[in-house]
């Protein structure tokens, strides 16, 4: 299995606890958002804590952009406070005895040089300017988490680690913070590691994915390629689907529709507010894709794409299979019944039409 994402960060960790072993060997990219994805107990938080140096009992090595942060064979362990990183915990964990401003300044004034991110910029990015003089207990959950993210950013870290920063929040608060996280992604050149068990969050934010199960790396790679793989354990394929990045190409005012273009075709969705040219990500679940031999006529489904079958794999039930297709360079996955597979004589190399019943827009 190829698990090379770049050479900027090399992490080899072993942590052994009663009933749990983390054993990973990863080369990780030095830019963009890398999602550490997996079910609870898969070791994703432990891996993040190892990167931060918060797990003193881990053995292994960690090389970060040419610096050795840990090497057990040479007894090197750089303590957390000497690593240039920001860490956002699942609960905001603001210092309750300090105001928002003092919380933000706490880390910042302990960093001597190289303030790449100005305090004002961090405050503006997270939209917390009006909260600076409040005490943490006077903030909502979403506000607290935004302050925690800004506090981590204010130290101008070379690496930002986030442990399910949205997990403790309800849906409304989540949607309140996600746009801010997207801005971090777009505006800052800091590699981010983002722990999540939510496929939608991963699809929306990540550039790379590391899939973990029971303390081991199951798959790692670019977001689109990894999510479109068929050889992953069924635990992940029950929610199989692909992520497509598209551009807002046209608005149809008469029918209140918007056309999104991507390599390999376009889809039409209900009218979006975004301006022409804006990039949007959407997710197509395998269960929302059906296959026809010819371009269907007389159907209410308007999103039809020509595509070529590339491979076929077992799905989460014996009655279904997952069919991977290539639509002009964009991977698609369709979940169809085994009977349809035989009736339509689906095989690799065959040209077919994919009918997309629904797309989930991620922004």
């Amino acid at each position, binding site marked *: 299995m190829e698990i090379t994402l770049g050479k900027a960060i090399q992490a080899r960790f072993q942590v052994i606890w009663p009933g749990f072993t983390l054993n990973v060997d990863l080369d990780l990219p030095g830019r963009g958002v890398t999602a550490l994805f997996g079910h609870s107990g898969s070791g994703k938080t432990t891996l993040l804590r190892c990167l*931060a*140096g*918060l797990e003193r009992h881990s053995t292994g090595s960690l090389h970060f952009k040419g610096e050795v942060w840990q090497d057990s064979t040479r007894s090197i362990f750089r*303590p*957390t*406070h*000497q690593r240039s*990183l*920001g*860490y956002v*915990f699942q*609960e905001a*964990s603001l*210092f*309750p*005895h300090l105001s928002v401003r003092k919380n933000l300044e*706490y*880390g910042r004034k*302990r*960093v001597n040089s190289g303030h790449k991110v100005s305090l004002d910029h961090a405050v503006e990015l997270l939209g917390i300017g009006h909260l600076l003089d409040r005490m943490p207990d006077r903030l909502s959950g979403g506000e607290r988490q935004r302050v925690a993210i800004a*506090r*981590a950013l204010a*130290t101008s870290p070379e690496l930002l680690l986030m442990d399910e920063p949205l997990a403790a929040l309800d849906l409304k608060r989540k949607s309140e913070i996600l746009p801010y996280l997207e801005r971090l992604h777009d505006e800052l050149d800091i590699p981010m590691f983002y722990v999540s068990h939510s496929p939608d969050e991963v699809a929306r934010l990540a550039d790379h994915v590391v899939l973990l199960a029971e303390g081991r790396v199951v798959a790692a790679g670019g977001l689109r390629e990894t999510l479109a793989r068929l050889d992953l354990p069924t635990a992940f394929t029950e929610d199989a689907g692909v992520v497509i990045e598209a551009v807002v190409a046209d608005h149809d005012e008469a029918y209140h529709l918007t056309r999104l273009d991507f390599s390999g075709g376009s889809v039409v969705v209900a009218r979006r507010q975004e301006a022409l040219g804006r990039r949007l990500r959407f997710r197509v679940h395998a269960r929302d894709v059906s296959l026809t031999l010819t371009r269907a006529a007389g159907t209410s489904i308007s999103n039809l794409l020509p595509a070529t079958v590339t491979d076929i794999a077992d799905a989460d039930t014996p009655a279904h299979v997952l069919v991977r297709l290539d639509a002009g360079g964009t991977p698609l996955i369709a979940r169809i019944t085994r009977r349809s597979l035989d009736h339509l004589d689906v095989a690799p190399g065959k040209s077919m039409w994919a009918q997309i019943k629904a797309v989930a827009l991620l922004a």
Partner: protein
Amino acid sequence: MFGEFHPALGNADWAAVWLTFRLASLVTVILMVVGTPIAWWLARTRSKWKGVVGAIVALPLVLPPTVLGFYLLVAMGPYGPVGQFTQWLGIGLLPFTFPGLVVASVFYSLPFVVQPVQNAFEAIGPRPLEVAATLRANPWDSFFTVVVPLAKSGFITAAILGFAHTVGEFGVVLMIGGNIPEKTRVVSVAIYDHVEALEYAEAHVLAGGMLLFSFLVLLALYSRKGASAWK
């Protein structure tokens, strides 16, 4: 039965009050310095010795003061290990001196300082320290800028209890310090003397003063409960 009432205290009684205040203040300062690392260790360690050390620290809570005083007297006496050590240092023997009283009081009041501070440390948990470390604070830095402010309430409780408990001791003082005016005669011993001499009026003034002092201390302590630690 109350005898003639003299509201004013004699010079000897004022000396006892002043001595008690000096003793309790000094002991409290020493206890905060000695007790904080012990409390920190007890709150954070996973060592198998935690139970043993915790039990030793708590012993004065249940032991009769005379037992503690007896062993301290033996240890600090001319043939005890502490006594041999102090003689070797050239400072003589500690029993029946003010420094001896200080040492004994530190042992006697130790749990009253260690336990509130330990509880406060345990309530903080490891998370704020991890946060501080990710914000570049070294362990000493985070102790003074995060742990101490968050444990402020525990420290205040510990200081009040340590001071008040030292003021209130009697048995250990009698065993270690005897009853030497201006050296080891504290208020509780002075009251005992007055009662033995049937000087009830003087005993009343001192005993009433102690009662009022203790009540005010506890009132202050219990009024604090529920109040936020950092406001």
